[in-house]
């Protein structure tokens, strides 16, 4: 039995079928690369995998259990990195990381320290969010991945605004996560090195331009 699987997912946005009958299954330690042109539904698929968006048909299972049975348990096992960084202008980097880690249900000082080291934001620990650059905010958001452990990482264009060194740090973090048996699902336009990742081209699942009622 695979750890995380999608069967026949169909997504409708604004009356238009974005993709249809999309399926995949992932084993522990594997990665999935989402590719496709604008509007092919990469972000929608990631939001669907997170449970933010409900598929119009099809289902998602974790170790054979449908995720809709217990959305909270699904929330506990995933990290979602979207287009916005969830960094408040008046909270410091350390406060932001501690807050999200505690809310996720596993705050430990050592993991937060480790997360800040991994993404080279330790010297920014006491800097409030309003002083951070776009790349630094993105690194704070990515540091959440390390600050509280969760097996499933859903990353929507995580390399946006990152410099080369930070992309390397992200690649290293993903490699370690997979080595520990975690799953990574990434959408990207830029080059991210993800060895032995399965590639999912969303245009292969584009629905014929049909009219949904």
């Amino acid at each position, binding site marked *: 039995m695979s750890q995380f699987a999608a069967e026949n997912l169909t997504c409708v946005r*604004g*009356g*238009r079928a974005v993709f249809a009958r999309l399926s995949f299954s992932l084993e522990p330690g594997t990665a999935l690369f989402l590719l496709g042109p604008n*509007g092919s539904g990469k972000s929608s698929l990631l939001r669907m995998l997170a449970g933010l968006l409900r598929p119009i048909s099809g289902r998602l299972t974790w170790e054979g259990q449908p995720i809709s049975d217990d959305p909270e348990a699904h929330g506990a096992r995933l990290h979602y990195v979207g287009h916005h960084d969830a960094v408040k202008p008046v909270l410091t980097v350390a406060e932001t990381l501690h807050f999200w880690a505690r809310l996720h249900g596993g705050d430990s000082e050592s993991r937060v320290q480790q997360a800040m080291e991994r993404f080279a934001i330790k010297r920014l620990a006491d800097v409030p969010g309003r002083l951070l650059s776009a790349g630094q905010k993105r690194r704070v958001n990515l540091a959440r991945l390390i600050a509280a452990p969760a097996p499933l990482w859903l990353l929507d264009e995580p390399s946006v605004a990152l410099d080369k060194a930070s992309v390397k740090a992200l690649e290293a973090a993903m490699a370690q996560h997979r080595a520990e048996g975690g799953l990574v699902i990434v959408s990207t336009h830029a080059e991210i090195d993800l060895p032995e990742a399965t590639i999912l081209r969303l245009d292969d699942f584009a629905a014929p*331009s049909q*009219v949904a*009622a």
Partner: protein
Amino acid sequence: MFGLQNPTKFLKFAKLVGPWLAGSTILLIGSGLWFGLFNSPADYQQGETVRIMYIHVPSAWMGMFAYSVMAIASAIALVWKHPVADHLARGSAPLGAAFTLICLVSGALWGKPMWGTWWVWDARLTSMLILFFLYLGYMALAGAFDDPERGAKASAILAVVGWINVPIIKFSVDWWNTLHQPASVTKTAMPSIDPAMLLPLLLMGVGFTTFYATLLLWRVRAEILATRIRNIRLAQIHAEGA
């Protein structure tokens, strides 16, 4: 529900039932007006002005009825995601708002000869005024989103919350009214009914209901067609883009 949640089946149903509803509306309201205006007694206290009742009271009924339809359809749309229920809720709102407005305006016209003033903070009229604002809020929210699906969902939640609040508002306004006004004023607003007045009132009541149903069917039909046109255009845009 008889497969009517399917838009195509609903269109067929509307085509079949629509003319019958429209026909009975003309008959009912026509005969109701005949009895109401020419063939019923004037009130011994209010004289001929009592005939405003035949518009005022049925529109008050419909204002409340349309809100219930809107809220129940919204709840169905939220739980079962039937597209037609969405259209029903959204179609019901402007109709209910119009009936509520007719009730308020006819109430003011009735109030002038009766109370000597256009507006009295009578419990019923005040509740109808608040209901009118609930309709306005619903319609403003439904139209405030660029994505019509968002507007539909948000306004559906509002309709259900509003519906739960309506009895509380009604109760509080009644309580407030008895505190501030002598009870006799409210009494005269709804005179005890002479049997000869009851017939035209009932005819008008049923006639307004079929009138509402006719307009609602047409609105839902128009909304279904508008959604289809929008989807076809969207599909074209994306076909060109690809």
